[in-house]
């Protein structure tokens, strides 16, 4: 009886899609336990290889950050030595002390924060109003205007920069005798509207059920108070995403501030970083330690922002992909 059972085999050849599978317990001569074990081992090996692949690439991803950090803690002799060390021989903070004295971190920081706050507030205001109009109100020409807005999203920003520079110059914000206020205006005003964020928020507003609007109307609320009392709180996650992305954008802005300012005191943090010559006064050698200390100072605030608002940042960036 037992012998007979071992000789039976299941033939999948007639039913398998590829027509190439013959599953035979008898022919292989292995028990089901052995097959299970084999499968387990091969799965283990695959998982191990997958982890190895991911870990190697993850290390490659982090390596620049690690190198930035340890270089900022090294002495210049050690940085320029022929044998590189993967951990500083002496951990020293003098690079940071020097950089905080030479690199006007405070000035750039203040400029960046002022520009970031005002452009974010402006963007939020214009975005909320426009998204509300596009999502909730019905009026003639709405869809046409929205279509035009969407079309502008496809046009590369470089097309606009040239004329925007001329426009800003004609407002008297750029050129000889530029004051700090002029510089701020030139850095803020062109960026207090973003078609992409309007689109993002409109999609979010559209998801808010119509019944809420009708209920608010029955209760005698105006559109205006409905927007601020109901819709804005409901769309808060998206608004937070927009705020953070806008902040990050200002922190990373390089081209435009460089273009519209004449005095380096009016520029933002990225400009300060690339514009400063981290050179030793006596020997004229580039001090990589100073450079890296400055980059650490610029990178750390972004990392802190990321640590605290990881969810919002990743959702804000990812939302773009889902909506395509």
């Amino acid at each position, binding site marked *: 009886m037992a012998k007979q059972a071992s000789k039976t085999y299941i033939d999948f050849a007639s039913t398998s899609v590829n027509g190439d599978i013959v599953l035979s317990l008898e022919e292989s001569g292995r028990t089901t336990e052995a097959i299970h074990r084999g499968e387990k081992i091969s799965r283990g090996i695959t998982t191990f290889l997958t982890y190895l692949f991911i870990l190697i690439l993850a290390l*490659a*991803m982090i*390596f620049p950050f690690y190198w930035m950090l340890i270089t900022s803690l090294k002495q210049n002799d050690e940085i320029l030595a022929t044998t590189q060390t993967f951990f500083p021989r002496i951990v020293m903070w003098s690079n940071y002390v020097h950089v905080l004295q030479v690199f006007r971190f405070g000035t750039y920081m203040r400029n960046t924060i002022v520009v970031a706050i005002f452009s974010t507030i402006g963007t939020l205001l214009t975005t909320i109003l426009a998204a509300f109009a596009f999502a909730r109100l019905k009026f003639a020409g709405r869809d046409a205007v929205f279509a035009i807005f969407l079309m502008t999203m496809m046009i*590369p920003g470089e097309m606009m920069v*040239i004329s925007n*520079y001329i426009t800003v110059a004609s407002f008297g914000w750029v050129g000889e005798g530029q004051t700090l206020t002029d510089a701020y205006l030139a850095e803020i005003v062109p960026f207090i509207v973003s078609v992409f964020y309007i689109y993002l928020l409109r999609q979010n507003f559209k998801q808010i059920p119509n019944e809420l609007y009708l209920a608010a109307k029955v209760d005698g609320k105006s559109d205006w108070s409905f927007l601020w009392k109901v819709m804005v709180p409901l769309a808060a996650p998206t608004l937070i995403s927009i705020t953070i992305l806008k902040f990050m954008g200002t922190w990373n802005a*390089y*081209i435009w501030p460089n273009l519209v300012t004449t005095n380096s005191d009016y520029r933002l943090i990225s400009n300060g*970083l690339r514009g400063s010559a981290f050179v030793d006064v006596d020997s004229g050698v580039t001090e990589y330690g100073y450079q890296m200390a400055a980059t650490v100072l610029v990178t750390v605030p972004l990392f802190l922002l990321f640590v605290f608002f990881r969810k919002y940042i990743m959702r804000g960036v990812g939302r773009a*992909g889902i909506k395509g």
Partner: protein
Amino acid sequence: MESIEKTTQNQGSQTGGLSRRVLQKVGKIELWVRYALGVIFLGVFLYANISLNQKTAHDLAQAVPVPTPDEPLYQETLLWSFLLLLALDVLALYLLYKEQSVYRSEKMHPDGRFLARAIVLCLCGCSPIGVLCIIYYIQQKRLLAFQTAQDGQNEAAKMFREERPSYVAGYDEANHRMIRLVAPKKHRAAPYQVRGIEDVVAKNNWKGWLYLAPVIVLVAVFLIYPLINTVFIAFAKNYQYASGAFDGLTLRNFTYILGLTTKANGAHETYFISYAIPNTFVLTFVTVAVSTLLALFISVALNSIPKFQKFLQTVFFLPYVTNAIAVGMVFSVLFDDNGVINYIFHSTTRWVYGADQWVAMVPLCLYIVWGSIPFKILILLSGLQGVDKQYYQAAQIDSASRHKVLWKITVPLLSPQILYIMITSVIGAFKEYTHIVGLFNGPGTLGQAGTPNMETIVYYIYQNLSTNTSEAAAAAVFLFVIILIFTAIQFVVSKKRVHY
């Protein structure tokens, strides 16, 4: 219906020559070209017309006789548009004629699309005349308004009062202003009556424009006007941005940046054609391909592992939240002559400072790939998590190989995300600028000194922006057209390959 379609297709291919399908395709392309050209020309015309009008208004204020619009700029552009649109008209007429003859040979009635095309041709065929009419109309309107304003507002005020006696109106003599008092609305909704709330309140809500007003003003000033203006500057001769003066329209800016012609003073542009264009294309094709493939592998691997998935995903997202300039400086330290990369690989290659053009591409491409992977992983991973597990179970039953599962199941299912990534990253790579500044601190491997051998098209635009505005604008239009072509190609390919 389908059978008829099929038979006509067969007949079309049998008759030889131009089949109906080919004609329809060509006709469609022609239609889109016509639309695009129409929009561009309308923009340029309106712009030229408005600047001309400003001049006439100015002359009127100076009590000079009104000049007729016979300036060379005007005539040149008019001639161009006339010829182009006329050529298009001839082409369209020829196509329609051909198509009709095909229909006749097949004993078929033309379908709706054919008629629609014929109607569009009738309307747009006379587009030069239409444009002329619009310009003339605006001109007349402006002159009229100016003259009436000068003739005296008393007359207008009197007429206004006589025509509309129902208004309680007055005329402020001192300030030359109409004072208009409007009576309250007659019909008010009865109290305690709630009906058709949405229809009455939300429809035709003129307040919508109020909500939109700030955005429309900003978009008009900083998005739409610059777009038209940049196209205009790209075609303007001897444009000076400070005064806005120019001597007519020309194609010379384009031929100059492409190295085909020289300037009047003998200046000859070589950097754009020898550095900017090849660099931009190499960067785009290398970085987009490498980073998309890597991101695909990483996200598939991340999706398959049981533990630490969230943590590793965060690690891979880190490069997204960095300052491009700062990390560029880090990469230049990594790839320094005495840097860690040379130390690990025991080489003495000069990667960044003083490097050869194509050697310097290596750190640059690595840096761009490093910086662009996070976004792609995020998108691909969210796509992977939405994939139905049944596909993989079916593949397992058929004992499909890992390789086959990846390319026959995962990639086709992810194709919408991949298309999105490809489009955004191709556009992004064509606009490469910040990474170069971060890595090289200038347009070339010698920083601010030396030849700009790492220049890209966008770098060229920014370098020439304030000194040679017209050339920068021409380069921007050039870039725009390239991006448009590539996006269109991607969409056409996606029609066949993307499965939604």
